[in-house]
């Protein structure tokens, strides 16, 4: 099956071609600008599977009268309004824009943040079109899945691919209530994408899983995890590989005989290698280069495995209860990397930051 969509931009037509040409399953047409309401109506009425827009749509006066110019969020809002009235025709909307414009215009505009399912930098799309394309297809399919169970209330939870007791166990009240009360598929999609896919908790990313296994690279042990059906197969899984945290925890307790994060990286790597002949390598502390640390999370900044004792809590005001709090490793704190990544340290650890800044550590820092 192939999904159809539009890319709306006043300058760069090529992204439509690019996203359509690097594989099957997605056909994106370039749509030049028009008066906002007309364009929104035309787009919505053509029942697209996805719409991609650039944020700045006012840079080409030949295409639109500057007095009538609007930006991507304006168009997205019109489309979302229409979708709320006709949820059966709801579709994902993604933003594809230049990095500096995202930083300078989109990021400060908080009202626009809920309008888009995903945000892509044009650089990213140009350099790695295939993963982006896969995520766009996944979004199309995810919306299709959500719309298929839209009228069912609790049935909406089935999009995760779990059933029975297992579903009851993971579908906590916060998530359940949010999904049932969602007014439109795009709201449900947003809850899943931002609350489940993007945050460690119910699901774990590859990096999170590596950290919890205390290893540097997940690939040697991937097949084992897949075999144990730990991999997430639910909505949006085609675009974002995730692992079920509860299934992983069950499996890990069996393998390690304890909660894995109570063991050092070296010990866990040894167990994995002994049990599965996986040839995994233990993770290395970003702080002291030791593998004898109890790795427990993937740093919110550098994504490398980190240990609790050499980390601080990241500030995340929107974190749902079922998610794990993100943490930042001391190395990212001491080198100022977290500042560049625009991730704040939670106030509970603010005092610790000052200490970390001047803390000596064993071993040299070098390339």
């Amino acid at each position, binding site marked *: 099956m192939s999904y159809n969509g539009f890319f709306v931009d006043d*300058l760069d037509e090529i992204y439509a071609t690019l996203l359509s*040409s690097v594989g099957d399953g997605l056909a994106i047409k370039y749509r030049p600008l028009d008066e906002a309401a007309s364009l929104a109506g035309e787009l919505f009425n053509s029942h697209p599977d996805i719409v991609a827009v650039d944020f700045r749509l006012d840079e080409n006066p030949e295409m639109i009268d500057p007095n009538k110019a609007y930006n991507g969020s304006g168009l997205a809002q019109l489309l979302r309004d229409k979708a709320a009235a006709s949820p059966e025709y709801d579709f994902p909307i993604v933003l594809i824009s230049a990095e*500096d414009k995202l930083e300078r215009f989109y990021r400060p505009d908080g009202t626009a943040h809920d309008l888009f399912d995903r945000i892509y930098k044009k650089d990213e799309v140009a350099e790695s079109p295939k993963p982006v394309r896969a995520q766009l297809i996944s979004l199309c399919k995810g919306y299709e899945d959500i719309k298929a169970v839209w009228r069912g209330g609790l049935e909406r939870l089935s999009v995760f691919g779990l059933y029975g007791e297992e579903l009851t166990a993971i579908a906590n009240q916060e998530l359940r209530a949010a999904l049932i009360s969602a007014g439109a598929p795009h709201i449900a999609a947003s809850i899943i994408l931002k609350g489940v896919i993007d945050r460690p908790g119910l699901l774990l990313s590859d990096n999170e899983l590596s950290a919890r296994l205390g290893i540097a690279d997940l690939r040697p042990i991937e097949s084992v995890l897949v075999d144990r059906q730990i991999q997430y197969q639910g909505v949006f899984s085609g675009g974002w590989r995730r692992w079920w945290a509860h299934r992983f925890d069950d499996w890990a307790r069996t393998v390690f005989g304890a909660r894995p994060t109570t063991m050092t990286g070296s010990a866990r790597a040894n167990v994995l290698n002994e049990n599965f002949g996986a040839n995994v390598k233990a993770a290395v502390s970003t702080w002291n280069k030791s593998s004898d640390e109890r790795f427990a999370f993937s740093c919110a900044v550098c994504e490398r495995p980190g240990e609790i004792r050499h980390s601080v809590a990241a500030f995340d005001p929107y974190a749902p209860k079922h998610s794990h709090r993100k943490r930042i490793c001391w190395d990212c704190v001491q080198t100022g990397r977290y500042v560049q990544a625009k991730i704040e340290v939670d106030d509970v650890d603010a005092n610790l930051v000052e200490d970390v*800044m*001047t803390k000596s*550590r064993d071993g*040299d820092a070098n*390339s």
Partner: protein
Amino acid sequence: MSEQKKLREIISEELGKDLPDWHLIEKLSRSEVDSNDDSVRFSVDAGHIQRLGLELVAKQETALAELIKNAYDADASQVVVTFKDHDRLGGQLTIEDNGLGMTLEVVRDSWMRLSTAHKQTQPISPRYQRLRAGRKGIGRFAVQRLGKTLILETEVSGNETGLRVSFDWDGHFESGQDLNDIFNQVEQYQKPVEREGTRLRIGLLRETWSEAALNRVWKMILSLQSPFAELVGDAMVLPEYVDPGFEVQLNGESTRQRKTTLGIESGFLQHALATITGGVDANGTATVRVVSKKTGLDDTHTYEKKVVLTGPFLFNARYFIYLPDALSGLSVPLAREMGAEYGGIRIYRNGFRVAPYGERSDDWLRLDRDTSRRVIIVPANNVNFFGQVSLSREENPNFEETSSREGLIENEAFEELRSVVRALLEWAFLRVASSRGRKQTTSQKGFVSTVRPRKPSEIIDTLYTSIEATPLEDKIAAKHESTDEHSDAPQPSDLPAPLAKPREVVAALQALEQARDEAIRWETEVELREAASLQYEEMLRILSSLGLSISVFGHEIKGIRSSVSAHLAVLDDQVSGLPAGVKEPLAVTASGLKGVTSRMFDLGGYIAGLMSSTESRELQPISVKGAIERFHQQFSQYLDRQKIKFEWDVVPAHLRTIEMHASELDSVLLNFLTNSIKSMKAAKVMPRMIRVSAREDGELVVLSFEDNGLGIAEGNEHRIFDAFYTTAVNLDSDDGLAGPGTGLGLKIVSDIATSYGGDVTVESPSAGYTCNIEFRVRADGARKE
């Protein structure tokens, strides 16, 4: 027999001779007349000649000036003054003019007649209608002042013979003799009929004429008429007919040659801060106008009192202030020298200068006195003016020169002249001060000057000028008050007047000169530094504006980067779908296109990254490890393409700099990197290696940047940190990132280090490397574990 009868007999006897002695008859007749008891009359002692010459004319150059003026009065166009053996006593001086010459009658009735009224009755010369300078009929006795003997030769055009009269002043004109009894032999000699003129051969000169004295003569000759043609203008009374001019030649050198320098000096007047013109009209109304183009001043003032005694006259002056901002590029020392040499307000009468007004030692307008007493607080010493007051005998009859030719008789007219000229001048220079934003009087309390602070040398100069310009009598008085009476030092009266400065004054002036020299040396150094700094700032401004352009360029490049990449990705995809045979050449082309655009995007990416890092103006301690990591990450693709092996280490890892801008540390690393790339390219080494290491050294962070390029030539270790020093011009600068050398990179690095308490030095490289530059800044002072 009575004396009277005896005299008559002798006279009668003499008259009876075939060749009577007329001199004897005349003398006896006079005695006979004088013996008359009914009347008496004046007689003149021969020694009177000495008084008219030697005792009346104080200076020998004044005496010479009188004789030159006589030549002018005689309608000469040239006068040749020749000294022989003038550097010792008994030398000879010849003054020869081409004037009208004298007939025997003129010699007898005018030249040989004391106090002749000839020039008074005939004030206009017959040929060129010159207003005659002489008047009293005694100027010619200056010859007696100069030498002991005189041979007067005078020739009149149309006569075949000339007249020669010899005088032996000291031998014949002795006191006790009656002047009437001294006869001088007149000799006639053959001459060309057309030749005319008068020649005075003065022998047995009474004084030596040193080079300094000759220079004074020149000064006197040149100042006989205004040396500044510009000042003449309407103020000079000029004849309306053609006068060939008046040329003086002294020892083979003509006034024209001498005036060459003065010609330059005439241009000098154009640098005046202000022109002051004024005078008194026939109604006795005195007005003055001051014009200063430099300050935009043009103002006129009328003197409140009527001037009744002076008669109409004009005056004209140029006002100078010896400060750079008031001289519009003219050298201050040169201008000051000119001021000392020619400054002052002179008086010219009928076109000829009246000494001593405007001389260095003269202060007839009381300018120096009042400045030194701070009655005047603006620059207004005599040396600050180049000017003249022009009087004429006809318009200003109340002015009379003293017989000594050393000034005007200080009568009421003169006092009025002094008063009105000073008042007009003072109004003018105060107006200039006002227009320059200077305080004009001491009573201006709370006055806020709008001018820049004065330089030390300028302050010293003012002090120097003030001391130097203090009237001589004051200095002498000071000297007398302070000098030890047993001192061996020559007393002022022993010295030539212009040089007679008390010892303390001389010492003070010398000390001031030394201080001024030292101040000028300091100022020069400061100005050089300032100039270099300005040049550096100028270049930084250029680079800054260039940076803005580059920023825009970088932004645009970054903007199109994704678009180009997207196009290339589509092209790749389209090419991959083509049939074999068609696909390959297109794939090669697409690959080549991808390569060159990547190179371009390296630069764009770098610039965009740099610009984003400069967005933050916040000062904060910088993690050296973090900075190097980011730097390495940013350039990793570029370094890979350039086949550069990049290593780094930071010990301790928490090493942080003092609070600074993150972009500055980035800039340091970038400067090092670009230099290294250029150097390694030029050295044609492979593999290319760069090693960055950072360590703590006491309170400093030391960042060492090493490469295996050309290294730094011995002797250049310090110069490489100077502004505009670059070796990159000879290196390959084809690289987009490394770029051409501006000579500012390491200077900027050095400035950054210095501004954060560190420095930059060239150090010994590690094994395998050829160049090591170490950058130091203060470390973050926070507590360490």
